[in-house]
């Protein structure tokens, strides 16, 4: 069970990594090509494409890559190494991708159901690879309760998740909690979909 989750997550990361690498690589190559055009100018490569405009059009450039770089040897993507991926990025960038899955709760409840347990286990598998990370578990509530009681409910949700993470072997020094009650909703709107999206423990990596 746990293993399959790892694989699933691993795949997920690899895909994301390759995509990004593809874009970065093509930007570098395109940049090299552009600058070589400028330097070596006409005789050798008369059909060289125009230097690409900077980063904004990186995606377009990457699509054209096969044609524009026929003879350039394509570097094989390096094997997936999550440490590298995260270490080279800022906390803001890491958190933007929410690598740790949120844990969702039932209405007015701080109990962990089977989906919640699976999500927490998956997060444990990632956290085990990053013993230096400090994680803040944010407790959130939907907008249907009172703001005062929801501060307590959010705290309980965060504490329940923290407790389970510790049970699964995560060091307490890696874990922080905070309750935002219903003050920072993820989705606005008076629908069951947004309510259930807001009843969560949300993970933020606060130190690498």
């Amino acid at each position: 069970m746990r293993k399959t989750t790892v694989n699933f997550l691993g795949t997920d990361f690899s895909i994301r990594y390759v995509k990004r690498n593809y874009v970065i690589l093509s930007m570098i190559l395109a940049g090299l090509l552009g600058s070589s055009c400028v330097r070596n100018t006409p005789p050798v490569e008369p059909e060289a494409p125009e230097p690409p405009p900077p980063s904004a059009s990186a995606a377009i450039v990457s699509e054209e890559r096969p044609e524009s770089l026929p003879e350039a040897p394509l570097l094989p993507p390096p094997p997936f190494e999550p440490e590298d991926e995260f270490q080279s990025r800022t906390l803001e960038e890491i958190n933007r991708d929410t690598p740790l899955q949120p844990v969702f709760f039932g209405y007015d409840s701080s109990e962990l159901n089977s989906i919640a347990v699976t999500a927490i286990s998956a997060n444990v598998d990632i956290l085990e690879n990053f013993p230096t990370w400090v994680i803040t578990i944010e407790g959130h509530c939907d907008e249907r309760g009172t703001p005062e009681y929801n501060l307590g409910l959010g705290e309980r949700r965060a504490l329940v998740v923290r407790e389970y993470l510790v049970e699964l072997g995560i060091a307490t020094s890696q874990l922080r909690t905070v309750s935002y009650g219903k003050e920072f909703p993820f989705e606005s709107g008076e629908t069951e979909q947004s309510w259930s999206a807001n009843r969560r423990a949300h993970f933020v990596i606060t130190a690498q």
Partner: protein
Amino acid sequence: MTNSTRYFLIGQFTIIAGSVLLLSQQLEPNQRTEVDLIIGDRIGSQPRFAVPDCLALPESAELIDAAETIARVLWNDLEFEREFQMLARDTYATIPTARSFTDLPFDAWRELGADGVVSCTVSSLPNDEIRIQARLFDVRTLDSTFGVEYSGQMRSLRLYAHQLSDEIHRNQRGLEGIARTRITFVSDRDSESALGLVEDRQTKEVYVTDYDGANTRRVTVSRSLSITPAWSPDGRAIAYTSYLNGPQDVFVSFIYEGLLESPLGGDQDIHNWLPAYSPDGKQMAFTSNRDGNPEIYISNVDGTNSRRLTNHPGIDTSPTWSPLGHQIAFTSDRTGSPQIYVLGIDGTGLRRITFESYCDRPTWSPAPYNEIAYTSRTSPGSYDIKHIDLATNEVRQLTFGVGTNESPSYSANGRHLVFSSTRSGEKQLWLIGRDGRGLRRITSMGNNEMPSWSR
């Protein structure tokens, strides 16, 4: 007695506004009893009062404006307590302003049906100060029953009107008016994006406003959440839940000194929230996770002598003090849904007082009333304000399903409540009498919520 009362007023007022003088009325040699000074003699009906514009001396544009403001603010203050039948000000706009306290057109006032008239002057003093003199006249006896004089800064104009209202209520009705009280609350009106690692989060900050919604000022600049503010009983500090250091902790803002403290020792693991001052201002009740679960604690306001009051695996939160400080009412979900409980501060005498679907934010009324107001879920997703009489267990519902209505807080005299409501669209602060009458809105910018009314 009268002198000591006035002396007390001077002290209190000086603290609030600075240099303001209250001169005692010179009593006639043949002193009358207090009863004679009360205007209105018709049993079962309120005395009818008029408040024409003050006389401006000299008649500069600024003073004429001030003269109108004082009369208008005073009229609203007197109307708010519903002790007098206030005659609409436009019905006597044509009655000429008295040139002195000795030439009031009593015939005209009698014809209008007024029992009492407040006559006032605003005059300019050196150094941009102003003097306000006011007297309350009994139209029947032609006597001045009451008079005051204030001097001070023009910017405190509304405060002079509020104090005049409070003194008229005290003099005529033995009532502690609340016209000089203020309300602290939370608003997103100046919302910015919150600092932190998660994007798209908007700040909320703490504000203070006069009871009538004028003079609104911002208290906190946290670039995060500053919520659940609570007044200290002396009105000099506001305690609130702050996320300035990451997780929630109780901060205290001393609004006159400009000092900020976090006395309860919160850190990354220990969180404190929802502070409530004891009536004597020496202790604070609050919710904390310090023992692994939200429980109620009490400590001295400097954070010393902290002790746990509740002990239950459910959520215990939202504490409020009884008027004498012997008991705490709080919210607990120990039976499955949040309900209101009362407990002695020695930890004994636990009593559940609500048996509804969902109740929170208890607020104990000041004496002489012995009731607790709270937010109650009256239908799925809809909340209303109720209060329960602790002697009879009688519940009175004050709002009825128009928008959601939450977070009640009592005025110092127990006659009014402020609460937040979505009845007009965005969340705004509204006032309502404890009898359910006199609904009025006091905010309009952004969303405004979690009010606390000063003592």
